[in-house]
C-alpha cells in the first residue's frame, strides 16, 4: 500500500513536470531560424527534394553515423550473448506449410525490390536508408520462416555490413578532401533537381546506410532464430 502510493506520487510528479513543460505550447506559425535555414537552402545546397533526407544525411550526418554505430554495437552484443554452439539432437522440425512456402517464393523478391526502391529514392520521395533497411529485414523474416531447412550465411551479412559501413565513412572522408566538410555530398555533381541520379552523393550514402541497417537487423533476427533450435 505504501509502495503503491509512492509510485502514484512519482507518476503524478512526472505528469506535473510534463504538463508544466507543454502548458505554454502554442501551435507555431513560423519555422525557427535553424529549420528555416534547412528548408530554404537545403534544396539548393544538397539537391535533395526530401528535406528530411537532407537533414539526416548531410546536415546531421554525424548523428546518423553515431546511430548506425549504436545499432552495430547492439547487434554485436546480441550475437555475442546468444552465441550457441550446440544444436539440439533429434529435434523434429515442424514442416512449414505449403501456403507459406509458395507465397513467400513470390513475395520475397517483391519485398526486396520494394526495399531497394525505397532507399534508392530516399532523396526524392518519403523513405530512405532506415525504412528500406527495415523492409529488407522483414523480407529476411519471411525467408527464415518459410525456408526453415536452409541455413542463411552469417558471413554474407557480416561482409555486406562491413563494406557498407566502411563505404559510408569513406564517402564522408571524401567530403572533407574534395568538398566542404565531413559528409558533404557536393563532390559529385548535383545533377538535375528531382531526377534519380542527382543530389550528389546522397543516394550512394543512403543506399549504404540502407544495406547496413538491413544487414544488422537481419543479423539480430537470425541470431534470435538460431536460439530457438539450440539447447539451453
Amino acid at each position, binding site marked *: 500500500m505504501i509502495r503503491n502510493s509512492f509510485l502514484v506520487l512519482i507518476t503524478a510528479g*512526472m505528469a506535473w513536470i510534463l504538463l508544466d513543460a507543454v502548458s505554454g505550447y502554442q501551435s507555431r506559425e513560423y*519555422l*525557427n531560424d535553424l529549420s528555416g535555414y534547412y528548408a530554404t537552402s*537545403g534544396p539548393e545546397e544538397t539537391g535533395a527534394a*526530401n528535406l528530411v533526407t537532407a537533414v539526416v544525411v548531410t546536415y546531421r550526418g554525424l548523428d546518423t553515423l553515431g546511430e548506425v554505430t549504436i545499432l552495430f554495437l547492439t547487434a554485436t552484443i*546480441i550475437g555475442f550473448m546468444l552465441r550457441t554452439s550446440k544444436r539440439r539432437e533429434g529435434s523434429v522440425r515442424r514442416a512449414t506449410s505449403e501456403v507459406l512456402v509458395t507465397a513467400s517464393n513470390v513475395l520475397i523478391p517483391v519485398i526486396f525490390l520494394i526495399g531497394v526502391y525505397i532507399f534508392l529514392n530516399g532523396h526524392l520521395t518519403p523513405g530512405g536508408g532506415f525504412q528500406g533497411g527495415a523492409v529488407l529485414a522483414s523480407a529476411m523474416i519471411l525467408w527464415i520462416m518459410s525456408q526453415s531447412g536452409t541455413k542463411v550465411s552469417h558471413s554474407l551479412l557480416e561482409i555486406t555490413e562491413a563494406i557498407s559501413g566502411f563505404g559510408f565513412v569513406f564517402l564522408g572522408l571524401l567530403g572533407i578532401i574534395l568538398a566542404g566538410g565531413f559528409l558533404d555530398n557536393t563532390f559529385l555533381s548535383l545533377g538535375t533537381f528531382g531526377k534519380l541520379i542527382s543530389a550528389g552523393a546522397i543516394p550512394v550514402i543512403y543506399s549504404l546506410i540502407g544495406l547496413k541497417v538491413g544487414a544488422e537487423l537481419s543479423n539480430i533476427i537470425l541470431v*534470435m532464430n538460431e536460439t530457438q533450435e539450440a539447447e539451453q
Partner: protein
Amino acid sequence: MNLPGIEYLSLGLGIVLFLAGLWGIIHQKNIIKIIISFSVLDTSIHLILVSIGYMRNRTAPIIDSAVSKTDAASQVVDPLPQALVLTAIVIGVGITALMLTYALKLFNEKGTLEIDKFKSLKW
C-alpha cells in the same frame, strides 16, 4: 463545435501514453512486462516530438509540384524533429532487442522473470 487541432490531440495522447508507460515500468513485476511498457513509452516520446514539429495548413517537407523550391520555408512543417525521430525509432528497436536478450540470459540463469523472486541482490 470548436475542436482542438490534431497537434494538441496527439500531444495530449503522447503525454498520457508516456505516463502509462512510466506507470508500467515502475509498477509491473515481470521483466517482459517492463520491456513492453518501455516500448509504449518509446512510441509516446516519438509522438510528442513529431506533434511539436507540426504546423497547421502546411505539408510534408518534400519539394515537389505542391511545394515550390524557393518558398519552401513557408509551406512545409519542421523537418528537424522528424529527422531526429527517424533515428530514434531505429535505436529504439536495437535497445529493445538488447533488453530482451538480457532478459533471456537472466531467465536461463535463474529460471524465472519475476523480479520479486531474485534474492541474490537482497540483503
